[in-house]
């Protein structure tokens, strides 16, 4: 092969390599972790594996599947059911929805409800012994606890990236189609579609008589269960993470990195001048009067309800996953860090980190 030919073929191969590196295929090959926990274990979806980690030792208990399968990718937050299942769907090029035994990681059932058309990026909701599983194909799949389709899928419209929530009677589904959809599970029909002006990537917060939802329209709205709604706050940037409700205060953060506290009784801001070190994608959590927020800059911040920072820790990586409180520990799953999971006590002392073995 002469030099020109070699150069030409090399250039073509390089081009192919560059484009290949961009991703491709029909599966989701890159996203941040999903994280859940019970009193004994943390469950982290870590791309090719779902891993259970012992809360006391920070050591791996099991992983699913036992061997990596490039067609299976797990990014959704696993969900524990009252009857002892751990549910999660794959976002890879194959899209089984899987039930695992949380103690052993053994597969209890796995079904493909979507004919591989849509990926599972969001967690399901379990209500009245039925699983409501939102998919990126815009359908909410209704599954019984044994993994059989219990009813026709409910067409929502728009990709579903967040878990539905319920007040016990109605189901609220946030969608990227800019709407919050209210579903009556008894009839399996949508009763209201409320336009929020922008994509709604995260679950709303349940309140008496309705829900609070933030959106890419940079607003927080209160949506009553009859479908009426009003904007109660505006922010300077997109709202990604779920708001948190505590008594008369609503806490939420935006991509600009601002954290807000809204007095729901008066409609006034309690405070909104708290801005840690980076954009905030993850949802906030509230534990014992302390609010925890994880920033994209890789910092975990604990603050009191008055917006005073109690402590902050540079953990590393980038936080997009909402922290989880379990067994007196704050669990965080940084993206692109040296470890997949880290545990802190409520005083900010690191208990352990978890790095999976290859």
């Amino acid at each position, binding site marked *: 092969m*002469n030099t*020109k*030919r070699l150069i*030409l*073929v090399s*250039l*073509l191969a390089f*081009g*192919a390599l*560059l*484009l290949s590196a*961009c*991703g*491709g*295929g*029909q599966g*989701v090959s*890159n*996203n*941040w972790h999903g994280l859940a926990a019970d009193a004994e274990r943390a469950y982290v979806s870590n791309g090719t594996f779902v891993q259970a980690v012992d809360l006391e030792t920070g050591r791996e208990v099991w992983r699913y599947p036992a061997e990596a399968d490039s067609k299976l990718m797990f990014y959704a937050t696993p969900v524990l059911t009252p009857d002892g299942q751990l549910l999660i769907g794959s*976002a890879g090029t194959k899209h089984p929805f899987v039930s695992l035994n949380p103690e052993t990681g053994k597969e209890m059932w796995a079904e493909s409800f979507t004919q591989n058309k849509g990926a599972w*990026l969001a967690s399901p909701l379990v209500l009245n012994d039925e699983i409501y599983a939102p998919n*990126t194909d815009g359908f909410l799949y209704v599954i019984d606890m044994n993994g059989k389709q219990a009813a026709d899928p409910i067409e929502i419209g*728009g*990709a579903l*990236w967040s878990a539905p929530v319920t007040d016990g009677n109605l189901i609220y589904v946030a969608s*990227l189609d*800019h709407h919050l959809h209210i579903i009556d599970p008894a009839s399996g029909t949508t009763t209201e579609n409320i336009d929020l*002006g*922008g*994509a709604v*990537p995260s679950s709303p917060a349940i309140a008496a008589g309705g829900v609070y939802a933030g959106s*890419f*329209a*940079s607003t927080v709205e209160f949506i009553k269960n009859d479908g009426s709604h009003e904007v109660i706050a505006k922010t300077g940037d*997109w709202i*990604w993470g779920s708001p948190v409700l505590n008594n008369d205060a609503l806490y939420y953060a935006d*991509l600009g990195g601002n954290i807000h506290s809204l007095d729901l009784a008066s409609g006034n801001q309690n405070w909104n001048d708290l801005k840690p070190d980076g954009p905030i*994608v993850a949802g906030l959590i509230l534990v014992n009067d302390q609010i925890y927020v994880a920033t994209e800059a890789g910092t975990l911040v604990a603050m009191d309800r008055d917006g005073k920072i109690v402590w902050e820790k540079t953990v590393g990586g980038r936080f*997009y996953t909402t922290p989880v409180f379990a067994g007196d520990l704050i669990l965080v799953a940084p993206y692109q860090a040296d470890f997949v999971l880290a545990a802190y006590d409520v005083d900010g002392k690191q208990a352990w980190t978890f790095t999976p073995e290859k």
Partner: protein
Amino acid sequence: MWETIIIQPMTTLLLWIYDALGHGPHMFGLAIILFTILIKVITWPLNASQVKGAQAMQELQNDKEWQDIQKKYAKDREKLAQEQMRIYKERGINPFASCLPTLVQFPIIIGLYQSITRALSITPFDMLKLARTIYPFQNVEGIIPLNSTFLWMDLGRPESIQILGFGLPTLAIIVALTTYVQSKLTMPASSNPNDQSAQMTKMMSIYMPLMLGWFALNFASGIAVYFIISNLLGIVQYAATGRANWSNLFGGSKQPSSKK
């Protein structure tokens, strides 16, 4: 750097066109088509130089001095290459001029692919990157996520039409065909089997359709739409200038008219 000079402007432009078109179903496909036309207009000088280079190479094949050195150094490839380079230099011919524009397409293709996947944001991670890509003056909250439907396709996914249970990748086939036709039309005729540039151009006319067809087969169909429109516009451009070498495609001795 790549992000600032390629991805951000491309994504912004795609979103702007999509918004201007009314951001409904099929509009992102139309946005890609309009974007491709715009790219073709911008790269017009490059394409013109490709036509000029191909023409110069074609004329060189009939030049007596060129033919003489082919015969004289038929068994000394190194010397032949030296002499060819001398003639290229003396006559101001760039032997790569005919394939350079095709190679220049690569950054555009890669940038466009990244812009399409980012604009479509099928994953939260892509959406987050899109949020970073948007200029502060752009208000895109009302138009994202984009509607990725175009005709029968989902522009964010590879395309195929189910026929008797078999997924026929129609776009990939059309991409390969139009790339082949375009490269054949622009390929100068050469009577000398030892002509290296002719060999290279011929090789390009085989490799490029295969490679672009492979891209179209495996990646978002939005990129295949870009390839097809780009190829068709290229064919029209060559045909309009009267330099299209139809004999390469259909055989026979018809040569393009010589316009100077």
